[in-house]
């Protein structure tokens, strides 16, 4: 089978102009994502990952270059996004939030709510259908945001640090949930921003590493695991080898530059 390209980012730059001056958030960035592929986007804080994702979601326009999405309309909607700060509506119940995208996609209310309920159960939120976000914990809110995006069964799913605000146990569980749902074909193509190396490798077919601001794709790593994969690959030798390799490359970007920033010798970070 010939791989179809579903996302093409070609020489995209993004410059933010404000009263205080210009910020170059993205330098010439190119990336091509195959249909059905999961790409993890890794990079130091402020390198433009969120900016790139907003360009993919058409929430912003590039300064130069172009982003092209070729989606095959296999899902219920073309693109959906899980936002870094979840952005679920305080004035809607859990059910109302999850059904929101479905209703806007043209589903009648009963149908939208039926699908929403399914995803609420999958996200372990059963019993909280009628609760307002104000009554939920941070992890629960994040799961609502995830359910809202997944319920749409998008051709392209964009995730901006979806698990960053969670405790490590919850994060691990949700990573495994997402892995399972993605491999079950609910999500077709996905690009996920993360700071978590393990998450990037566990979920991704490839890991794209960005350089410090202004960001560009510095290197792309192929993840040497097939699908479906078990969450237990985390404990394998191959996993820690690729992890080490990615970290070695990322470390140079994360470390502050300058004469004082003497290299620190330690083999395994975090």
């Amino acid at each position, binding site marked *: 089978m010939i791989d179809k390209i579903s996302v093409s980012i070609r020489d995209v730059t993004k410059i933010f102009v404000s009263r205080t001056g210009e910020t170059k958030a993205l330098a010439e960035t190119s990336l091509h994502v195959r249909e059905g592929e999961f790409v993890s986007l890794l990079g130091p804080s402020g390198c433009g990952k969120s900016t790139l994702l907003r360009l993919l979601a058409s929430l912003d326009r590039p300064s130069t270059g172009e982003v092209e999405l070729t989606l095959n309309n296999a899902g219920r909607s073309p693109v959906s996004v899980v*936002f870094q700060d979840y952005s679920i509506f305080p*004035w809607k119940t859990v059910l109302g939030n999850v059904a929101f995208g479905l209703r806007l996609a043209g589903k009648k209310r009963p149908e939208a709510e039926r699908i929403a309920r399914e995803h609420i159960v999958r996200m372990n939120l059963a019993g909280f259908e009628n609760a307002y976000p104000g009554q939920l914990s941070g992890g629960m809110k994040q799961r609502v945001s995830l359910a809202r995006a997944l319920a749409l069964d998008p051709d392209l799913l964009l995730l901006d640090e979806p698990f960053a605000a969670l405790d490590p146990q919850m994060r691990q569980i949700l990573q495994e949930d997402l892995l399972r749902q993605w491999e079950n074909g609910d999500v077709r193509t996905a690009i996920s921003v993360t700071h978590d190396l393990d998450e990037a490798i566990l979920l991704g077919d490839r890991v794209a590493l960005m350089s410090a601001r202004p960001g560009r794709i510095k290197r792309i790593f192929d993840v040497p695991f097939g699908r479906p994969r078990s969450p237990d690959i985390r404990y394998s030798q191959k996993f820690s080898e690729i992890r080490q390799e990615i970290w070695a490359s990322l470390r140079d970007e994360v470390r502050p530059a300058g004469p004082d920033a003497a290299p620190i010798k330690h083999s395994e970070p975090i």
Partner: protein
Amino acid sequence: MNVAPGSPRALERTTRIVNSPGQLERQHSKLVARRSRFRLLLNFLIPAALLLGWEVGAIFGMIDRRFFPPPSATTIAAIKLFANGSLLGQIVVTLYRVFAGYLPGALIGVVFGIFTGSYWTADALFRPVLTAMYTVPKLGIFPLMLLIFGLGDLPKIALVGLSVFLLIAITAHDAARAVPSGFIDVGRVFGAKPHHRFLEITLPASATMIFSGLRLAMGQAILVTIATEMVNGDDGVGFLIWHSWSIFEPASMFVGIVTSALVGVLSIGLVTIVERFCICWEDQNQTKLAFT
């Protein structure tokens, strides 16, 4: 902890800190009920003290009761006016004018304000006009209303509606602009049409601020109604106040003043009740009182 050396406490090895349910936790509903009763008492404390002082001052001749009839005299006048049916009639007429102007003015104001606050072109087009009209004293254009709408209720209702509309349009405009862009982004990602954006995002996101405008506008609606009744026509609470003054019956004048204050408190309380009903997602545990 500071413990003097040599004291018995210093000899103890450990410090024991216990945190157990306090009174609020053990008797929550009882305390809440008691607190809201106390609150009600506090609400009436200052008015009661003022009225009592006035009454006592009048008894001892420190206040001239011909010009400033004491509360007792005002109460008697109120009972008389109430008994012959005229007070209730005036209140009904005034309330009719207030709400006939307020409801359409507020409704159009909310929709229009959110519209101008959501699109920069609408903002550029309408904001200067709205701001300019808002600063014109409303009573100053009452003659204009009389010219346009003739005599009767309509010019008064129109002026109330206009005042409410302007205030609410400006509040809703600012409220819509203050909606966090993240919420708008969610709408865009999920393909919200303009009516979705309005009904499901901007309106609820700006509701709290709009309701504070709705309360202020209710006060202004009453103020404008009573003022127009003073200068034109022969009914309403405003007419009662002005007419009593011109035939020198200060007691009924005070009845009119107190009545307008009560109408104001109750109407604004009504807005707060509607707000609690509409903004159901916010924590309602705090006992907010309707009339504040």
